[in-house]
Every structure is written in C-alpha cells, then in structure tokens.
C-alpha cells in the first residue's frame, strides 16, 4: 500500500505563510506595474530573464541550496510556498524553471565541488539557465533507449547524438543530458551517465521546433562529436539512470503539475463575480474542490521529499491526476463560458487561445500519463 499510506497531509508553518504573503504582495505589485500579464502554462512558455533575476535578488531562487553556494538554506516547503504563488499568478518563470526546480538539487546532490561552485550561485541569482536533454528521436517514453553516446577521449569525453523536445535550449546556458558511456543499447538502464554541457559549445547545434501553438518552446539539440572536459560528467559514471529517477519525484509532483491553467480559472472565477449563473457556479465549485485536493496532495509529496524520502509512486500519481485536471479546467471554461478563443485578444478569449493548444502537452511532458500509471501499478506490487 505504498501508494497511499506513505503520504500525510501537511499544514504550512508560520515561515511558509509569511513567504506566501510576501510573494503574493510582490506579484500584485508587479502585475499592477505591467511587468507581466498572467498567462497559462507560463512555466513552460513565458521566459523573462529580467523577471528571473528579480526573483533571484529577492532570494526566491535556489532557495533550498546552502548559503555557501549562493542559496538561502530554506526548506523545500518554503520553496513550495513561493513556487505555487508564482504559478497561480501566471508569472513568467520559464527562463529559470528547470535550473531552479531540477538542476540545482541535482548538481548539489551529484555534482563535484567544482561543478557546484560553477553553476549553483548563478542559478540562485537567476542568471544561469538550464535545459534537460532526455528524449531523443527514438527514445520518448522508453528513455532507456537513448542512443547519444559519450566516448572517453584524452582529457574528457566526446559526445555525439540528438536530443529532442529540449525545452528552452535556445536561451539556456547549459544542458544536462543523458548519454550512454558504457555497454550497448540492449543493456538498458546500465551504462548511462549524465553530463553538464555548455550550450555555446561550437559542436552543439540548437534548432527550433515549432509546436501547434505556433510558438518556439522546444528544440532539437545536436551534439556532433562535441568534446567536453572530464569535469562535465555529473555524478557517477554509469549511474545516470538512478540519478535521473531520483530527480523525477521533484519533476512530477510539484505545483506546476496542476496549476498550469490556474490563471485561466482565476480569470473566469473573477468574471463570474456578481453573476448568478448556477451552472457556472457549480463548475467553479467542482474545479475548486479538485484544485484544493490536488494542492493538498502536492504538498503532502513535498513534505515527504522534505523529510528525505523519495516518493516516486506518489509523485507519479499526483502528476496523473493533476495534469488531467489542467485539461479539465480548459474544457470546462470553454464549454460553460461560451467564449470563442481568439489569439491576442484580451480577457478569456485570449487566455483560452493560449491554453487550448497547450492541452495535449499536459499529459505528455514529464512522462506520459500511461507511463506514470505503470509506475503506480508497479508501486502497488502488481507489475
């Protein structure tokens, strides 16, 4: 019963509540000053390096890192309080998102002292952005099928391969990628390793992938015999798979897995104020109950992570429920509000136009929901 018993609800403490109020005030001010316009899926789509640096200056990036690496020694639950406010407000957090969420804890855990000193302070300042190189043309859900190869050469590694669906590689400074250092593709999880590679490398080519929303969030990253120093290896040679799996609980259970479309719901709920449409009211109530519960689930996983546990099964389950909810929000607002989506328009028409073409991504990114359910089934001991 690992999937259900291991979690307990978490009540935020005073520090979390104070942070929440500070961040909320800051975001109100920024919005009022016209610094940003709330939009759905801002953590993937809305990159604003200036805004990221501003958050860094406030101490809201790299929060859980030790001070000696530029961090702020905050708990993961305090970080949760900040992050959920940013997401609910639809603030432009895409530039630093991957660096702050995933790479900071990963480099802290697996990196050498040199790597930590090189990357972590920049992440905490909101000046060093990262991309993740996992998927490949022939390795999507089946991640262990990666073909990118890292060959040991004199003084370092020579990496060759193609990474696909790499979010933000066009503005990121570095990429953490998964490559095979040992064995053959048939060896599956064994023989994989992680590398940190500078994206300005002359043998690394970043090409845009335009998605159905007409925008450029993703890239193809081609490494053409790119020679990197020995210090580019992240963690233990051959332990790449284990390191990646440990990151997944962070990647899958956060508030971005249910709040991507919260700005749309927020806008709709505001518009309904003072009106008396019982159908709309009940739908708002239904989505509110769901959002409240998903938040409690996400918080419970964050509390488990903060306690040093690695609740991968629970994280997979949160992402399955949460990402379906994100699509449910879009469909419900569209159906009940009766507003035609209109790209570039103000209000619900514009927000819907941004949200609708993103809905397929919700249940694909970070592991498809079918894969996540397999993880849950295995956690229940039936697979």
């Amino acid at each position, binding site marked *: 019963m690992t999937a259900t018993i291991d979690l307990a609800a978490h009540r935020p403490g005073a520090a979390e509540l104070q942070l929440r109020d500070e961040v909320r005030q800051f975001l109100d001010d920024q919005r009022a000053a016209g610094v940003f316009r709330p939009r759905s899926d801002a953590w993937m789509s809305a990159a604003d390096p200036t805004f990221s640096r501003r958050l860094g200056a406030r101490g809201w990036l790299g929060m859980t890192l030790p001070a000696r690496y530029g961090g702020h020694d905050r708990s993961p639950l305090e970080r949760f309080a900040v992050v959920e406010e940013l997401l609910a407000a639809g603030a432009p957090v895409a530039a630093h998102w991957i660096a702050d969420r995933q790479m900071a804890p990963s480099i802290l855990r697996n990196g050498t002292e040199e790597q930590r000193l090189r990357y972590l302070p920049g992440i905490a300042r909101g000046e060093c952005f990262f991309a993740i190189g996992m998927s490949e043309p022939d390795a999507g859900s089946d991640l262990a099928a990666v073909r990118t190869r890292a060959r040991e050469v004199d003084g370092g590694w020579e990496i060759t391969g193609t990474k696909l669906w790499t979010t933000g590689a066009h503005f990121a400074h570095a990429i953490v990628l998964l490559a095979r250092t040992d064995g053959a593709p048939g060896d599956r999880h064994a023989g994989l390793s992680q590398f940190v590679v500078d994206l300005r490398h002359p043998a690394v080519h970043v090409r845009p992938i335009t998605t159905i929303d007409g925008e450029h969030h993703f890239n193809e990253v081609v490494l053409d015999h790119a020679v990197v120093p020995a210090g580019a290896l992240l963690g233990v040679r051959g332990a790449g798979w284990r390191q990646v799996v440990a990151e997944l609980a962070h990647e899958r259970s956060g508030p971005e897995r249910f709040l991507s479309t919260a700005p749309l719901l927020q806008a709709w709920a505001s518009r309904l104020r003072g009106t008396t449409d019982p159908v709309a009211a009940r739908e708002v*109530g*239904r989505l509110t109950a769901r959002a409240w519960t998903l938040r409690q689930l996400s918080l419970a996983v964050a509390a488990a992570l903060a306690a040093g546990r690695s609740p991968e099964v629970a994280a997979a389950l949160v992402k399955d429920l949460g990402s379906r909810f994100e699509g449910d929000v879009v469909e419900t607002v569209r159906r009940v509000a009766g507003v035609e989506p209109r790209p570039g328009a103000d209000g619900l028409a514009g927000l819907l136009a941004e949200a609708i073409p993103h809905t397929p991504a919700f249940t694909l990114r970070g592991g498809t929901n079918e894969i996540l359910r397999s993880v849950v089934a295995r956690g229940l001991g039936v697979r």
Partner: protein
Amino acid sequence: MNDELHEEIRAAVGAILKGRTTSGFDGALWKDLADTGFHLLGVPEEVGGSGGGLRDLAVVVDLVAFHTAGAPIAESAFLAGWLLARAGLDVPDGLVVASLDEIEAHRRGGPLLLSGRAAVPWARHADHVVTLARDGDDLFVAVVPVGEVEQAENLAGEPRDTAVLDDVEAVASAPVGIDADELRLRGALARSVQLAGAARAVLESTRRYVAEREQFGRPLARFQAVQQHLAALAAEVTAMRISADAALLAVEAHDRAEVAVAAAKATASAGAHVVATIGHQLHGALGYSAEHHLGAATARLWSWREEFGNEAHWQDRLAAAAAGEGSWWSTVSGGAR
C-alpha cells in the same frame, strides 16, 4: 505528528475489526470497542469520554469503514460525542447517537420538552439520542431516551431511522453555540473520512484480486489495460484520503474549516463513483455476487456520498466561498486577496 500513537490505535482497532463485515449493527463488536474505550476516543475525559484528539478518533472511523463493520462510530463519538462535549454534558449510558436535525423544544418552567421528527441513523439500536434543540432563538444540546422509531435503511443496509418525539422530556440539556449548519459540516467531515476508508477497502481488494485471478494464462495484473485502471483507482483513493486528512487538520486548527470540509466531501463524494466503477470492473462478475465482500464497500460508497450533502451541494458552497472576499486562488490556498 502522532504517527506512533496512530499506528498503535490502527493495530489495536484493526485486530478487533478484522473479519467483522456486516451491514447492520454488530452489538458484540460495539461491546469489544466499548470495553477498550475506542468507542469514545476523541471525546474529552471531563464528559466521560476516552480522551484523545480528533485525528485519533478519525483513525478508528477510517478503520471501521475500511472493514465495512457495523459500528456507528461516526454517529456516536464523532457527532454525538462532539455535541455533548461542546455543551459540557456527560456522555449517557449505553449507545448514544446523534440526531441530524434540529428539534423544536419548549420549557414549561421545568426541563426541556422536545417534539418533532428527526433523522437519527442507528436509532433503533441506541439508548439515547443527542440532538440540537431550538426554543425560539435559544439553541440547546439535549439528550433524550430513544422512544418511537420509524425504520429505514440506506443502500448498504445501515439503519437510517427517524425518531418521533412528542413532548419527550430531555434527561439533560445545555445551551450551545452550534447550529444545524455546523452539525452538517461535522457530519460531512465524518463521511469524508469514512468514504476514504471504504475506498481503500476497494483498492486493497482489487489489488489482491488482479494479482491472483488468472485469465488467458496469466494474472489480470499483467494486462496493461488492467494496470491503467488500477493506477487510476489508486490515485483517486489517495486523493480522497489526503483531502480527508487535510480537512481534519484544518478543523483541528480552526483554519478555514468550512472550505476544507466542503472540498474534502466534494472530493470524496465524486471519487466514490470512480472507485466503485473501477473496483467492480476489475473484479468482474465475481465482485457482483452478494457473497463477495466488495459489495459491502461499494454500497457504502454509494450511500455515504449522498449523506450530509453530496458533491453538488459542497461544490455550490465552495463556489459561494470563491465568490466572496479574496481571489479564487486565496480560496484554494488561504491568505488574503
């Protein structure tokens, strides 16, 4: 928090409840719970309860639901015990259960006299009923002996009786600042915990069944279609459980309890359908037999989701909360604006 204590309660109560599934009242089981004091957990010792907190009691309520046992712990300790404690009245002898309705009362210089009809689950088995009583603008908690009872059952065969009172003299009463709305909220919290418990019973049974049952030469669990259903079931059960847990914490802390309970009951009531549907689908025809234990859990899900307000009721309440002060997001997460 009280993790160790809760583990101890879980082990002790689990040992008492194991294998005691029944639809009606199980007098022997109630005696076993009473002998150990678990029947009045969470009720202060000052009024004759066993002491302990709300979440300690919730462990027992959850387990009774999980084992689909015939013990009115929700209507007794969780509701009647709470009413008595709030009014500072002693717990009367025998089985005491709560009335879900306010009853008209009047005083003719002497004790409170109550008249009217009130929904009182399990009344036929009870010795005393604890009820909210109203005399004009004055609200009381009153204890009355059980008299005339009209019998009815819910889908799970649990007694859902009506008590009929005609100038019945209260054996004890005291003024109280609780109204029917607050009682309903408390009941919804109890049912949220129970729904999560029964849902876990469905998950546990389903998990075991798909691992054991073989078709086409392999266990059902080897089929991806079955795995997908099972994972969706586990997700819903976990959502129900965590929302009930979070609502208990909110009520204990007096922190936006109404939003928390409304969200938890809306989640639990809506989740009941998902859980019962997947549970039955994966058990196949076998689980449809009255002899199989699955039906006891799903019948409770189908009953409890309606009691103390179904999801539509609580969704409307949440919508009203979201339309009040502050933004939609502050309704979900707390804080100002």
